[in-house]
């Protein structure tokens, strides 16, 4: 088995004495879509931020690409439920912004940003402000911004939750396709979702959590063939199994 990209060993998190996560251990393997699913309050979004190095673990160990993580994780980039675009910047400028922090020169920043927007189907919207974009388009800009940094692991925090069902469906498929696309450097993703159906539809493996405190119940491989169809009978046994584990 190849080296894991991110490895969690006995990770715990406490806020003001309250235990949010207890003894969480699993690996993120290269090339996989790993979903973290569980009821609200199970700490799955907190865990994603620990993997990103945005907040420290209280106990246990996080390794990224073999190195013990301290501070921001340069191997990851995050997509947020709320899109988190800067309203005064145009789409291409939003996408290019993290590259500026990485010291990439301006012409290359813009070239990369436009390339990523093109892959998201938004070439024509490069000069649009976020307010001119629909919710689905805003999230496509958010995804382009994350992929532009060429992270080894893309971290997706409830990326489809703020979108209506029709918009979410096409975007899920687009994310799956992008991670296979030779024009995209990133192959691996961790998806946080409260939707068991979404986890089963998208993931290669699903980490099922219970709450109070958040802990891993089981890691379930989803060995259903791709491409998958939403609501297909082949996915039902996995959905049932996960609901059973979490309740």
């Amino acid at each position, binding site marked *: 088995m190849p080296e894991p990209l991110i490895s969690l060993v006995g990770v715990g998190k406490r806020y003001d004495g309250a235990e949010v996560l207890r003894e969480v251990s699993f690996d993120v393997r290269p090339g996989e879509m790993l979903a973290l699913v569980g009821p609200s309050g199970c700490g799955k979004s907190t865990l994603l931020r620990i993997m990103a190095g945005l907040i420290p673990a209280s106990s246990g160990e996080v390794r990224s690409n073999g190195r013990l993580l301290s501070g921001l994780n340069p191997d990851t980039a995050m997509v947020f439920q709320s899109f988190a675009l800067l309203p005064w910047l145009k789409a291409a400028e939003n996408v290019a912004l993290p590259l500026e922090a990485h010291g990439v020169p301006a012409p290359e920043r813009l070239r990369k940003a436009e390339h990523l927007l*093109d892959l*998201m*189907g*938004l*070439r*024509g*919207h490069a*000069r*649009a*402000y976020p307010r*001119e974009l*629909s*919710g*689905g*388009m805003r999230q496509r800009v958010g995804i382009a911004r994350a992929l532009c940094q060429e992270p080894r692991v893309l971290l997706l925090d409830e990326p489809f939750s703020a*979108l*209506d*069902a*029709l*918009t*979410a*469906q*096409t*975007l899920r498929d*687009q994310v799956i*396709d992008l991670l296979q696309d030779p024009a995209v450097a990133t192959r691996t993703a961790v998806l946080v979702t409260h939707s068991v159906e979404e986890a089963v539809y998208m993931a290669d493996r699903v980490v099922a959590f219970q709450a109070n405190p958040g802990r891993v119940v089981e890691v379930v491989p989803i060995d259903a063939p791709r491409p998958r*169809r939403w609501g297909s009978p082949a996915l039902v046994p996995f959905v049932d199994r996960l609901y059973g584990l979490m309740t």
Partner: protein
Amino acid sequence: MSAGLLPHAALGRLFGLIEVMADTPGPDDLFRLADRLRLQLDDLHPLIEAARLLGWARVAHGDYDLTEEGQRVATSDVAGRKALFRERVRGLPIIASILGALAGASAVPRETIRKKLRPRVPPQEAERQLDTAVNWGRWADLFDYDADDACFIRVEEDREA
């Protein structure tokens, strides 16, 4: 819907709808579709109207069905969808009027197009028409828009990949 006006459909939702329609082949009932998508008919209406206007769906007596081109849209990737969308959209009256104005100038003020709508479209709806035209035209790579200067911008045909 008055003749020649654009339905206010977000394109991500429209393509989602086409995919869902392709999942259930043959004519089906619109109410059942709305129910399955947990959408009000009022929310579904602009999407259906857009699918019809683009020649991708037929609607009659409360039933809908995808056309052959609609089926093709459902199975195409983003680039394929863009190509089909572009050909359909460039002929729609408001889009054609923007393209016509841009044939003679590299930038055309929003006000110019607004004036053309004014005699027959109420002011608030005219603004929505312009916003939707901007969105569709951008997605089709037919023209760009500068929100700071409020004008449509010509894009060169060779931008087409």
